[in-house]
C-alpha cells in the first residue's frame, strides 16, 4: 500500500519523459521544443523530500516537506512546500487548517534568528553572541546553585535539591531533546521542573 514511485520521481518522468517519447516519436520535434519552452518545469521535481510529522496536536499527522537543497548532503536547504503524507496510516494524506499552513509557521515573520538580551530595566532587546549568552547563563546558574543548594535537611538527611532555579520544558521538542534536558536539569538537583503536560 506504500506508494512505490516517489512523487519526485513521478514528476521527473512526467515532465521530462512524456513529451520526448510521445510527441517526439510522432515527429513533432518542433512542437516538442515549443511545448517545453512555455511549460514551466514542475517546481517539486527538483526538490528534496523529507518525512516529518506535524508539530501541533498529538494526532501526529505524517507530512512530506519539499526543500531546495538537501540537509543530509550538508547543503543549505530551503523549505518550499509541505503536504500530507498519503502513506501515513493515521492521516492518510490529509491535513487540517493548521497543518495545511505549516510552511508559513516555519517561515513566520516572528521566528527568532539571533540570541538577544534584555538588561534589567531596559526597554529594548539587544543582540548578543551565543558565547556571551551561554557564559552569562552558566555563571548565573553556578552562582545561584552554590548560594542556595540545600544539601541536608534538618534531620541531617542528604536531600541535594536546588529550588531557587526552575526549568519549564516544552511540549513539542523531541524525545531526544527531552532526555538531554532531563539529564542536565536533574544532575544539577533542580526540582522546579515541569512541562506543558501540566496544563
Amino acid at each position: 500500500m506504500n506508494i512505490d514511485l516517489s512523487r519526485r520521481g513521478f514528476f521527473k518522468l512526467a515532465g521530462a519523459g512524456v513529451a520526448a517519447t510521445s510527441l517526439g516519436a510522432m515527429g513533432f520535434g518542433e512542437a516538442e521544443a515549443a511545448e517545453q519552452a512555455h511549460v514551466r518545469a514542475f517546481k517539486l521535481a527538483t526538490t528534496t523530500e523529507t518525512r516529518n510529522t506535524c508539530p501541533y496536536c498529538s494526532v501526529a499527522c505524517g507530512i512530506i516537506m519539499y526543500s531546495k537543497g538537501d540537509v543530509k548532503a550538508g547543503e543549505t536547504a530551503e523549505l518550499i512546500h509541505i503536504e500530507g503524507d498519503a502513506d501515513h496510516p493515521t492521516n492518510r494524506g490529509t491535513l487540517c487548517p493548521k497543518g495545511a499552513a505549516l510552511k508559513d509557521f516555519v517561515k513566520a515573520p516572528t521566528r527568532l534568528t539571533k540570541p538577544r538580551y534584555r538588561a534589567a530595566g531596559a526597554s529594548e532587546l539587544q543582540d548578543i553572541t551565543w558565547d556571551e549568552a551561554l557564559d552569562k547563563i552558566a555563571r548565573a546558574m553556578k552562582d545561584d546553585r552554590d548560594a542556595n543548594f540545600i544539601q541536608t535537611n534538618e534531620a541531617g538527611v542528604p536531600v541535594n535539591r536546588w529550588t531557587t532555579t526552575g526549568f519549564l520544558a516544552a511540549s513539542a521538542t523531541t524525545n531526544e531533546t527531552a532526555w538531554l534536558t532531563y539529564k542536565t536539569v536533574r544532575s544539577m538537583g533542580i526540582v522546579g521542573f515541569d512541562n506543558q503536560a501540566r496544563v
Partner: protein
Amino acid sequence: MTNSWTDIKNTDLVVVMGGNAAEAHPCGFKWVTEAKAHRGAKLIVVDPRYTRTASVSDYYAPIRPGSDIVFLMGVIRWCIENDKVQWDYVRSFTNASFLVKDEFGWSDGLFTGYDEEKRDYDKSSWDYKMGPDGFVQTDPTLQDPRCVWNLLKAHVDAYTPEMVERVCGTPKEKFLDICGMIGECSTPTKTMTSMYALGWTQHSKGAQNIRGMAMLQLILGNIGVRGGGMNALRGHSNIQGLTDIGLMSNLIPGYLNIPTEKEADWATYMSTRAFKPIVPGQMSYWQNYSKFMVSFMKAMWGDAATAENDWAYHYLPKLDVPAYDGMRMFELMNHGKVNLYFCQGFNPILSFPNRGKMTQAFSKLKMLVVMDPLATETSHFWENHGIHNDVDTAAIQTEVLELPTTCFAEDEGALVNSGRWLQWHWAGATPPGEAKHDTWIMAQIFQRVKKLYQEEGGVFPDPILNLTWDYADPDEPMPDELAREMNGRALSTVYDLKDTTKVLAEAGQQLANFGQYRDDGSTMGGCWIYAGSWTEDGNMMARRDNTDPGDTGAFLNWSFAWPANRRILYNRASCDLQGKPWDPSRKIIEWTGEKWEGYDVPDIAVTAKPGEVGPFIMNPEGVSRLFSRGMMRDGPFPTHMEPFEAPIANVFNPKMRGNPVARVFESDANQFAAIGDPEFPLVATSYRLTEHFHYWTKHNPVNAVLQPEFFVEISEELAAERGIERGGRVRVWSKRGEVWAKALVTKRIRPMQIDGKTVHVIGIPLHWGFMGAARKGFGPNSLSSQVGDANVETPEFKAFMVNIEPSAEEPVA
C-alpha cells in the same frame, strides 16, 4: 490513549465528553467518521457548547462546565439499575468482589478520614480487607455488603436522573436517551470508546472525571478491546513523550518517582515500590521496579553508580513537598524565592492561569532564559503593549535572554503521539539565522556549568562531574546517540534469568526489550518503557511499513509503540476467562492452548494460562480498580465536587468548596469569587478553535487571517439580557483581571437551569496575545485562577466565574 487513533474505526459508539475532536484534532476525528460510515457507529457529544463535533453527532446534550462527575456517576447508576453490565468482565477483571474495610464510608460529600485543617484525607480506611495469608478477601457472589460492587451501588445511588438535571443542567430525557445508547455497549459484542481532552483535565478534580469514565468503561467491559478504551487526545505533539521521559518535578523516566526526603536511603525507597501480588499466582509487574531504576541510575551516572553506593542514590534530589510543579514555582517566584528560570518552548505568561500573578512573579526573577523558535509573550513580558500588556518596563529588573531554537522542520528525532507511537522524523530545512537545536543549547549550558565546577569547585559538584556524557561530540550529542541511550544497552554480558548459560546481550549491545533490564549494574537504560525502540536491528521508530494484517488498525510495523510495541493496552482483557475473544469479529489476541498470539503484542506473559493470571498486570490485584484504594488524594470513588468558583453550592455539602483536598495558596484563595457571587454570575470556560494551535499559529500570517481577532462566545439570551450587540465590543472581568473582546452571539451556547436558577455560560477561546501576526488580544488566563487538580495540579481553566458588559471602546492605556 489505551488504544490508538486508527483503532477508533472499530467502535460502535463514540462518546466525546471533555473534548472537541472535530475541531481540535480534525485528522484524528476522521476515524470517528470511518466508524460511522463503515460500522454504523453512533456519536454522542456532551458539552456546554454545541461544537462542530456536536454538529456531526447522532445525539447531543448540554452540560454545565465542572459537573461531569454527576453525569458519569448517573450513567453508572442507570447501568446498574437496568442491568446493563458485562457481568463476566466485571466479576473476573475488576475488583468488584473485593471486600473493603468496615471503617470506610462517605457522607456529606466527603469520604472517611477528612481533616479540614490539613485539607487532606487520612486514607487508611480506603483499602481492602486482607486475609492472614496476605491475600485480599473476596466474595465472588457479590453478596457481601462490604464488597466493592455493593459499595459502588450505594455510592452512585444519589446520582439519579433528577440529580443530573439539577446539577448538570442536562434535561432528564436527554440524559436517559444517552444512558440507553451507552447501555447497549454492555454486551460483549458492542464497544464504546471515550475520547476526551482538556475539557476533562482542566478542573480541580480532573483526574476523577477521567476515573469516572474509566469505571463506566470497565462496567461495560470496554477496556482492552478493539474500538474501546480511554482515549486522551493530548493537546501537543510531544507532551506524551515529555511525560514519559519524566520532565516533571517528581518523575523519573518511565513513570518512576523522584524520592521524597522521608526515603532517606535506597532500601527505604525500594521498600514501598515493588508491589507484591495480593491475589494468589498473580504477576505484579512493578516487582521489576529495581531493574528499571538501577538501569536509569547507570544511564545517568555510569561507573559512579555502584551497588556499594546504592547506585548513587544521593545524586538524586529528595522532595520535601509532593512536587515543585509550575504553580508552586510561580507562587515561590511571587514571594521572591526563585532567581533564575528557564522556559524551553513554553509560553507560561499565556499558558498558566492568572496572568496578573504570572507577570508579577516573573518581574521578581533575576534572570529569565527563553529558548523558542518564536518571539513569545514570555520573552517579552516586560514590554509595554498598552492594555494588552500594561507593565512598567523600567521597574522590571529581570534580565532576559531570548535564545532562537530550531523547529520541527529543522530537527530530527522522535515525537510520541496520543496512541503512544514513537514516530521518528527527519530534518528538511536549514535553521534560520543563528537558530540552534535545543540539544546543542542544553549541551552548551551543561558543558559550561561543568567547566565552572571543574575550575572553581563548588557545592556538591559530584552529580554534575560524573554525569555520563560519552557522546562523539560532547558539544552536540546527536539524536541517534540519545535515542540509543534511552533504549538501553548491556554494560556487561546479560544472561537469561531462567537459563543462566544463555546470553541475551553482550557488553555494548542494545537491549531488545525491558525484560533484559537488570538491577545488578549490568545494564543501563534511560527510559525503560522505550526499550525496544532502538535495538541491535536499528531504529524501530523509523519503521514505515503501513500494512495492517487483519485490517485491525494496529499497524504493528509502523513506528514503535511503548510499551513493547503494544498497540492496545490491557489487551488480555479482550478475551474471556478461557482466552477466547469476547467478540470473535474483533479478535486482538487469543489463547492457543499453549500461548497467546494474534494481531497485537499480548499484554501478558505469552505463556501465562488464562484463569491463572489476571489481565491487569500493573496492579498487584491482577484486576482493574472500580475502587481505587488510597491511590488518589480525593477519594476511592469519584464524588461530586463543584469548581472553586461556582454558581451554586455543592448539593451534598454547602460548606464544601471546590475539591476539599486541592492545594490552595493563600494569595489565590483571596482571589476567588464567593459561591453564587452576584457580581460574577456567569460560568466561563476556555476552548480552542480549529484554525489555531495554542499560542503558536497567531505568528503565522495564514492562520492569523483565518481567525484574526479575539472574541468571546455568548448566547442570544445573555446578549439580549445585557444589551450586547452581535459583533459588539464587550468587557469581561473576573476577580483576577479583565479583557476586552468582540462578542460572538450564537445559538451554540444556551442558558441552563441549574438547581432552580438560570445560569449562562460564556466561551473564551485561547489563541491571542500581544505577539505575532494576529491582532492583539487576550487569553482566558487573564481571568482564570491558579488552583489545580488535587492529584496532578492541572489548573482549573474549564470552569470559573466572570461578568460581562457592553463596552463602547477599549480604553487607551
